[in-house]
């Protein structure tokens, strides 16, 4: 199953890639593949913006806007004109999450 096309904020800069293979290892959607000692994106639309690849790439070749968010929080954010806060505890308080 795939979700909406052409919306992911995933960005990859092959110039910085050293071919370490971490991104392939951590992506739960199999977005990356190693070809000729470089990472390549196979199907960008599969990305769910979890951020595992960007966090674990030590060469800053990947960036993605991995804000955790759920529909309820986005809606609340839109209605109240604030950024969606989706997360818990400490500062956000009420909004449920993930």
């Amino acid at each position, binding site marked *: *199953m*795939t*979700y*909406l*096309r052409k*919306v*992911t*904020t995933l960005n990859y800069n092959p110039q910085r890639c050293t071919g370490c293979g*971490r991104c392939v*290892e*951590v*992506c*739960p*959607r*199999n977005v990356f593949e190693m070809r000729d000692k470089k990472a390549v994106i196979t199907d960008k639309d*599969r*990305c*769910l*913006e*979890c*951020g*595992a690849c960007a*966090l*674990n790439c*030590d060469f800053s070749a990947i960036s993605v*806007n*991995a*804000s*955790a*968010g*759920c*529909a*309820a929080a*986005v*809606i609340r954010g*839109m*209605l109240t004109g604030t950024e*969606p806060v989706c*997360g*818990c*505890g*400490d500062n956000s308080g*009420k*909004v*449920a*999450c*993930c």
Partner: protein
Amino acid sequence: MNTIPLYDKRTGNKAGQSCCYPQAQTCCIQPDQKDKTMEMPSKQFNKKPSWISDIILTSAGQVPVVVSAWSRSDLLGRIRARIGSFRMHYSIPPGLYAIGKPDANSDVFVSANYKLSFDILRRELEGINGWILVLDTKSINVWCAAGKGTFGTDELVRQIAGTNLAGIVSHRRIIVPQLGAVGVKASEVKNRTGFSVLFGPVEAKDIREYIRLNYKASVKMRMADFSLMKRIELIPVELNPALKKYPFAAIIILLLFGLEPSGIIFRTSWIEGWPFLLLALAGIFTGAFATPVLLSVIPFRSFALKGTITGLIAGIPLVYFTSMFSNDSGMLKAAGIVFITVLSSYLALQFTGATTFTGISGVKKEIKFALPLFIAGLTASLIFIIIHKLNIWGVI
């Protein structure tokens, strides 16, 4: 049944909609009142739970040995956690545990302190001698906690240091579930502790195969799938809050229909309101149950559209082909159709929070489109009902 003392009393908060794969749960929890979490877990049980068979003495102190088989209470706990009655408190003390007869060369598996995650791991580790390092994720599963950072680099480093792992094992590798990579930066863990992070399979059931393949996860093991079974397991996450809100919606519907020039008349409210009460239930069913189950066969990628389709499929026959609205005006029928469709679509959209393939950018895009339509739909529905009312009162 053994009761496992909680290591802290939480001010569990009643967050409604939620999230999270693979063991979804509502997950807003206040920070710990008391931080006792750096104590070895063996000191934190008043009474030995059934899943602990023994305590062994290591260079770093006492470590409880866990059994891999599930007892009845583990099974019961799983069912209850799934249905959602006590998710928040289904936790175990963080720290180091042993399984089998581990020694200094045995593997270290990292887990969350959500008991269900831990239970699944220990069951899959049957026959393996190893260590289980349980992070304090505030009783939240790995995927959910990693997104929030509680299953993250800092907590992992803290537990490695706090349990003196380096003194217990002679090697320097730890196996972290792959979904934890959202919160764990492997290179930083290595720099701060000397331990190399090996990302294991997404599912604990593949752990044996992963070890057999010499600590390599195949493509399939790395993929977070979203099978029918998983979707079914996640249904309570959306269904429960929706059903909880149902009585309030029902009261509003009844009040609305009971409205008469002479005040609120209970008889009219029921006679005209009950079809809408039924439509609301049907909408909850199609949006929060039918759509998730049939996700892969309903056309369109957009969840809001999927919910619209299921809503219409249930709504049209209910409104036009049953006797529910047989005596009513076209206005009321139109109001009914719009109402069930909006409800179903909205609840389907909520389910994006529970999937493993919907990124936030997509959800935002859908909402930008759908929210004005939802509001317009509900307004139209209300206007239709008002017109119907005015008609009956002979005002227009």
